[in-house]
């Protein structure tokens, strides 16, 4: 195990008494609680494009963010220079959110060991030789080009990072974590005559280089990206209007992230501005649906041993057999709502204030055979891969964009259709889930979620499901003319 505390203490001269002093300074104007978030992140990335290694980049970003809570208010300062006087200055800036005499005069600290290690990576990618990572991107490049002679462009990226984190709170808790993160991405362009189409794929997680073999091999992801582009060459106009939609397993779980996940983040709910506000205990989905957020799945991109406020992550049931059970909580919201923290307080970096965020959000498997689900559809859309999505948490309207989809005709998967955005209403879409497959799958590990300008790595997952009615945003008005 990496000793993260030693890392900061030895390299940057931090001491226990120093940490106490910074916390005391942060509380000097009467704040209720303060924490320090020390971060040191080493990042490395490679770009292979046109079969040339066009760029290799590495860098270090480090600093300390200091937060002071006073009632429902947050003061925040940060510094990228860990000299004691700079940290003290940031602490005094954060302190100003309160105004009054200090009611904490001294902070004693004790280090709390993490109870789990969900990403025990013996040799993180960031510490490996560049040549090993180059081998992975070259393999992807070769495999994508070998897939089909119509593949004209291949771009492969490999990115990895190690984040050392030390969090010290004025409640006396010092928590550390060592967070590796790795991601391989493949982008292809296929050309047939004047027709051009693209495909993307990739995978990763809180894993080392040994992850990239078998079903996670560069050849697998490259083959997927190439296959997608080739399939799209034959795609017809996507249909427009409401219809039955079957979502394939894995990535389409982005539905849950947009339709319910964001709306269940506690900050929106304590303010009463989410379409789910005040609806705990009510039915928000068909009884086939149980949705959880789970930060404890080993090696997953969205997993964490502790959240960015030092709280252990957990598996939180959001919707149980269709009934809304709980929200995703950070320290501030749990305090105001008088609920318990769920380990969902996250932030992009030391420059950012933590807030409730998802980790890995997925729906539990049901009992239906996916083939039966498809057979049960007379006419509809079968969407198997998605790009991004977005939601308006107040009116609940959400979108997610299919990048690979097919028509379903008389229970059979028919012609591929062009990418299209699907739009629905978060609080009601899951009430229209009429079948849930037994094939739960998590996404391949390349998702990033943005909220209030902060990006964090997340995961999603879902079994094959059928939604009885969803609006598909294609261009084709003809109900049946798009496939003959």
């Amino acid at each position, binding site marked *: 195990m990496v000793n993260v505390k030693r890392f900061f203490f030895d390299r940057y001269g931090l001491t226990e008494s120093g940490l106490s002093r910074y916390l005391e300074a942060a509380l000097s104007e009467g704040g209720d609680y303060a924490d320090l978030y020390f971060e040191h992140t080493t990042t490395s*990335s490679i770009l292979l*494009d046109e079969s040339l*290694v*066009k*760029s*290799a*980049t*590495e*860098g*270090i*970003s480090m600093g300390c963010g200091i937060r002071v809570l006073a009632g*429902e*208010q*947050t*003061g*925040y300062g*940060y510094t*990228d*220079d860990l000299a004691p006087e700079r940290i003290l200055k*940031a602490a005094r800036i954060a302190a*100003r*959110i309160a105004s009054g005499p200090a009611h904490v005069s001294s902070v004693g600290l004790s280090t709390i060991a993490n109870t789990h290690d969900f990403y025990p990576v013996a040799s993180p990618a960031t510490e490996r030789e*560049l*040549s090993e990572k*180059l081998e992975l991107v070259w393999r992807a490049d070769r495999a994508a080009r070998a897939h089909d002679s119509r593949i004209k*462009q291949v771009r492969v990226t490999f990115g990895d990072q190690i984040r050392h984190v030390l969090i010290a709170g004025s409640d006396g808790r010092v928590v550390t974590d060592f967070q590796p993160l790795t991601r391989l991405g493949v982008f292809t*362009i296929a050309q047939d005559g004047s027709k*051009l*189409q693209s495909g993307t794929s990739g995978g990763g997680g809180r894993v080392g280089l040994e992850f990239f073999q078998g079903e996670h091999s560069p050849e697998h992801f490259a083959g997927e990206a190439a296959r997608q582009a080739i399939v799209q060459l034959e795609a017809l106009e*996507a249909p*427009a*209007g*409401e219809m039955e939609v079957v979502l394939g397993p894995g990535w389409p779980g982005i539905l849950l992230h947009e339709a319910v996940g964001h709306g269940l983040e506690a900050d929106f709910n304590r303010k*009463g*501005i989410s*379409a789910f506000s005040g609806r705990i205990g009510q039915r928000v989905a068909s009884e086939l649906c149980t949705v959880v957020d789970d930060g404890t799945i080993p090696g997953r991109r969205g997993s964490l041993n502790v959240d960015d406020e030092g709280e252990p992550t957990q598996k939180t049931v959001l919707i149980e057999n269709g009934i809304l059970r709980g929200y995703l909580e950070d320290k501030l919201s749990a305090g105001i709502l008088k609920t318990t923290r769920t380990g969902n307080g996250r932030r992009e970096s030391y*420059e950012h*204030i933590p807030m409730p965020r998802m980790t890995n959000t997925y729906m539990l498997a049901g009992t239906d055979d996916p083939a039966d689900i498809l057979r049960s559809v007379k006419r509809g859309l079968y969407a198997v891969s998605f*790009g991004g*999505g*977005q*939601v*308006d948490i*107040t*009116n609940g*309207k*959400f*979108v997610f*964009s299919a990048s690979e989809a097919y028509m379903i005709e008389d229970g059979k998967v028919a012609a591929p259709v*062009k*990418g*299209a*955005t699907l739009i*629905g209403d978060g609080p009601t879409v899951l009430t229209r889930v009429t079948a849930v497959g037994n094939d739960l799958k998590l996404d391949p590990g390349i998702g990033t979620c943005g909220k209030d300008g902060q990006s964090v790595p997340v995961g999603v997952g879902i079994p094959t499901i059928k939604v009885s009615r969803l*609006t*598909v*945003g*294609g*261009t084709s*008005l003809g109900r049946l003319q798009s496939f003959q």
Partner: protein
Amino acid sequence: MIALEQIAGDLAERANAAGATAADVIVREADEFSTTLRMGKIENLKEAASKALGLRVLLGIRSASSFSSDFSEQSLGRLVERTVAMAKVTSEDPASGLPEQSQLGCYAGDLELFSSDVESLSTADRIQLARRAEEAALGADPRIQNSEGAGFEASQGTVAYANSLGFAGSYRSSYCGLSVSPIAQQDGGMQRDYWYSVARRAAGLETPEAVGRKAAQRALRKLGARKVSTCQVPVVFDPETARSLLGHIFEAVRGDAIYRSASFLTGKLHQKIANENVTILDDGLRSGGFGSRPFDGEGIASSITQVIEKGALQNYLLNCYTARKLGLQTTGNASRGIAGPPGVGPKNFYMPAGPSSPEEILHSVVNGFYVTELIGFGVNTVTGDYSRGAAGMWIDRGELAYPVEEVTIAGNLAEMLNHIEVVGSDLEFRSVLAAPTLLITGLTVAGT
């Protein structure tokens, strides 16, 4: 300022001494402030200063880059060493390299990118601006009783760039922004919208009352929104949503998309690609512009580039790398973050105002959709296929009739460019992208 140029120049020189054949360095220093208030109470108050640098080294036609926020002697020494070592394992790429000496330059005039009135605004004044904006929104109508909050943010900073050809330059800029997001409620339904004002000078901001009232109007008009039947109708984009179209067009004319054939505009230079009433400029010299700068991320003096002129594609937007790939000249569009090699970014990329007022445009539509909000990412630059979630107002016989939500609009950007039938007169610069109200035909609206 000179100190940062010195740091950049010294580091480039140091890279050369360590074996690089050429190098360039970008240094950024910034002060950041933000506050949010909700229901009259401060929620967040944040303030910090930061700095970071990025280094690119070349070994002949191989290159690598690195970044750090640690400016210590020891750290910079290690950075140079590791970057030079990394460059040894990248590929030989004939298009890589710094600009030619003769291309380097800096616009000499004052672009009014910096104003000291941002920095001199006190914390109390900044909080008060956000408070007034939220009060104006909450006071606008009894159906507004809640708010997601109001915010004020300010920053000022310096960017310095130097390379081993002897170029060194720097410039200061400032920025401030005010925004508010009220919640309107009626009959159990809830709608949120927002409005904002941004400027390089504090004196350039709209009044908080104007921002608050506009935000309230936007949220109120969404109340009672419904879906419409799937149909093909004329779509009017307001300036906010029209601006997002400019973003997609920028993605399609950037040099890196062109040389990879990853744009539907590949191979279309000097061809007619849009309706005759469409002109797009990329202007690096607009006074106080959010995309203005004296030189780009490679030390090329800023200029104005004609991108589309009366429907004809006149220029792609290029940095030195993409220009060499395409056998063209750079247009001074090198964008430079801290990490990685230069990319391609817009200057002030905009469509000049046309002849018709937004009211005239709306009145001209018998049955159509006025789009004020777009969500999601359903745009494919390779094919031009376009499909996004939309909300706005239905237009019935030239009047805004009722609010619409939970629909999509879809088409293809190549066709949309040819079907921009009317360009509005209401151009405003609120970011690096800007467009007036636009009327586009041929789009499919999907609803029930």
